[in-house]
């Protein structure tokens, strides 16, 4: 994991807007990617990305380089994305409950099925949707971002054995879903 240069972080922390823009240029790709995979939709991913960079901006002065800047950024991203995903899930459950209760007697055309070619992005999204948020974060950071177990443990602030057990459970869930035919190979 290649980190963001220390001097850029120091300059940004002292108020250099160009340095902060440079941080955005270097980090926005992985921040947005992780946010998109965990939150599972574009609008939420954009909001998460915005929130993450505002948190970075406000807390740059208190960053003490105890961990790498990238580790810190990943941590903020994962936490913000998981919170967003959970909030969205609660709202979705409330909305679905409301829709079931109010649409009983109405004739709806919701039975129309949309047949789409599954692109690799959609395939990834459907794979990840089968996992809980903690497992999803582990798989995204390991398989897509390429973090090692040690880096994963630092980002998620968990034990290395917990990293192993989450990865194991996530992969077993993916195998199970594939064998049920939920995910087309």
């Amino acid at each position, binding site marked *: 994991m290649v980190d963001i240069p220390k001097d850029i972080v120091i300059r940004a922390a002292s108020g250099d807007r160009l340095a902060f823009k440079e941080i955005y240029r270097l980090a926005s790709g992985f921040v947005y990617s992780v946010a998109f995979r965990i939150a599972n939709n574009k609008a939420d991913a954009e909001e998460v990305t915005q929130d993450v960079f*505002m948190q970075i901006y406000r807390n740059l002065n208190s960053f003490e380089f105890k961990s790498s800047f990238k580790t810190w950024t990943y941590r903020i991203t994962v936490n913000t994305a998981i919170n967003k995903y959970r909030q969205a899930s609660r709202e979705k459950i409330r909305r679905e409950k409301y829709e079931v209760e109010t649409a009983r007697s109405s004739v709806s055309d919701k039975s129309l099925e949309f047949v789409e070619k599954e692109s690799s992005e959609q395939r990834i999204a459907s794979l990840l949707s089968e996992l809980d948020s903690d497992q999803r974060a582990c798989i995204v950071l390991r398989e*897509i971002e390429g973090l090692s177990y040690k880096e994963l443990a630092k980002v998620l602030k968990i034990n290395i054995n917990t990293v*192993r057990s989450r990865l*194991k459970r996530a992969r077993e869930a993916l195998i199970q879903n594939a064998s049920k035919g939920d995910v087309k190979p």
Partner: protein
Amino acid sequence: MKCDKIRDLISTDYIDGQLNEVKTRQVKEHLAGCGQCSLFEEALRKSAVEPFKNIKEIQPPDYVWERIKENIEEEAQPQKENALVCLRDYLKPLFSIPKPVFAAISVIIFLIALTSSVVFFNSKAQINNYFQEQQEFMNSLENSSGASGAGFGTAIEEYFL
């Protein structure tokens, strides 16, 4: 090594290249001789590893940076100095007191004010009564001295004079 232990390793360290040489060799030897574990490894790679290979980083739309920039500029703007802002800042600590504490303080102040006003009015009434009594006494003295004429005051003065 037993199959369940091998599968644990396959699901984690082996597939992620985190195993040392000795353990990697042991797993490979087991897989060569165990059909079940071999099938498990194949299913794992197919469902949980290969789909995520060569996934490219996604860049956010340009307007995300514009929004961040706007938020930063908004936060950086200094507050316009005017009397109302100064007053607000001066009174701010008062409103940062928790509501229950603020309510309790208000009630105490009200009770003190109420008690003070009751005491004040009572004492005022007492003073008024005192003056009234003195006035009546003076009136009574005047009435009794008016009958004797000169009005020198006490009987002993009248005796000697």
